[in-house]
């Protein structure tokens, strides 16, 4: 059993690399088809977001040319890594990334999709790759704050993630940012924004859903915060 697991690591690594290449190969015609379908529905907001993304990509690309490690505001260090494969099942609980202990990755490091936007946390580390638990894991509960007033709530993992235990007296609005306030992630790191507030009079608390600023199925690279916790 130990021998098979030992050799299994190399085979799984090769499988992950092959899956990543195959995913990239198949994603090109799929993206073309998807783009044609969406062409009629583009609006100014999407164009502005794409321009913003392009500027971020340009900054990241420039930094990659010199180093895989860079700072944000002199406080947190990020390491850019590729997403090897998404979870093969629909609960989307995990990602596999192609950085491991040899790259300085350790368990509990936060994982972001862009600077300050969190998607999960490293939970297992191998020598060359790591497993990331995402906020879609139904068993995960994280304290959060909503909006400028900092209304407290609890983020429950799932599809989509939900925010519960929001005080009925708290003023919250759709579109307000939802940020981390617990010990798992740097304070103020963003999960997304509030969408669809439920103020059912039968409940003691308000509830809301989390709207993500990214498409999870299109993630090809993430940033690991290497100097936290």
């Amino acid at each position, binding site marked *: 059993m130990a021998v098979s697991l030992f050799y299994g690591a190399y085979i799984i690594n090769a499988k992950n690399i092959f899956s990543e290449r195959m*995913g990239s190969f198949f994603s090109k015609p799929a993206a073309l088809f998807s783009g044609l379908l969406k062409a009629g529905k583009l609006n100014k907001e999407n164009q502005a977001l794409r321009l913003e993304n392009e500027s971020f990509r340009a900054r990241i690309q420039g930094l990659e040319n010199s180093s895989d490690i860079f700072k944000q505001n002199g406080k947190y260090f990020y390491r850019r890594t590729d997403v090897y494969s998404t979870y093969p099942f629909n609960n989307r609980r995990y990602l596999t990334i192609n950085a491991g202990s040899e790259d300085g990755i350790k368990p509990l490091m936060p994982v972001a999709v862009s600077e300050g936007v969190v998607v999960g946390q490293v939970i297992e580390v191998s020598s060359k790759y790591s497993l990331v638990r995402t906020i879609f894991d139904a068993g995960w509960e994280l304290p959060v704050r909503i909006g400028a007033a900092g209304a407290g709530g609890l983020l429950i993992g799932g*599809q989509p993630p*939900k925010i519960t235990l929001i005080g009925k007296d708290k003023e919250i609005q759709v579109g307000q940012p939802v940020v981390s306030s617990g010990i798992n992630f740097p304070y103020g790191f963003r999960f997304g924004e509030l969408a669809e507030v439920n103020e059912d009079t039968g409940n003691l608390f308000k509830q809301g859903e989390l709207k993500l600023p990214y498409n999870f199925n299109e993630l090809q690279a993430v940033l690991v915060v290497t100097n936290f916790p």
Partner: protein
Amino acid sequence: MRFLFLTAFVIFAALVQNTNFLVIAGIKPNLVLTNLIAASFFIESFWFYSLLLFFGVFLLQNMPGLNREILTLAGLLLSVFWLKKISPWQPLAASLIFIVGATALFYVFGGLTSALLPVLIWEIIYNVIVGAVIYLILREICSE
């Protein structure tokens, strides 16, 4: 030749399941489950089926070692191989019924929460469609 084709088909399905190629509205079909259930109706040898099962679930592993979902999937697919011998239905119908049951049980034993119920329903629908297509393809290939 049929053995080679079935082996390549299962391996390819497992690799594709590790990508987002067939994701529709965030739902990914369980290609290993649908493939092996459909293939079980064209395989008599338990050892060959077990070999395909090993390839399929092993290639779904993201990390060395075994987790609950992989063990659950393997157990369900082995059960289907034996249950199909006593199923009273026509093979295509039996295949689709087993796909529905195996998908549902996979979520139950894998820790279904209310948050995943909509995902389960859509995955069952997707798996049934994919399973029917795979069964018809295998019927054409394996009947030659």
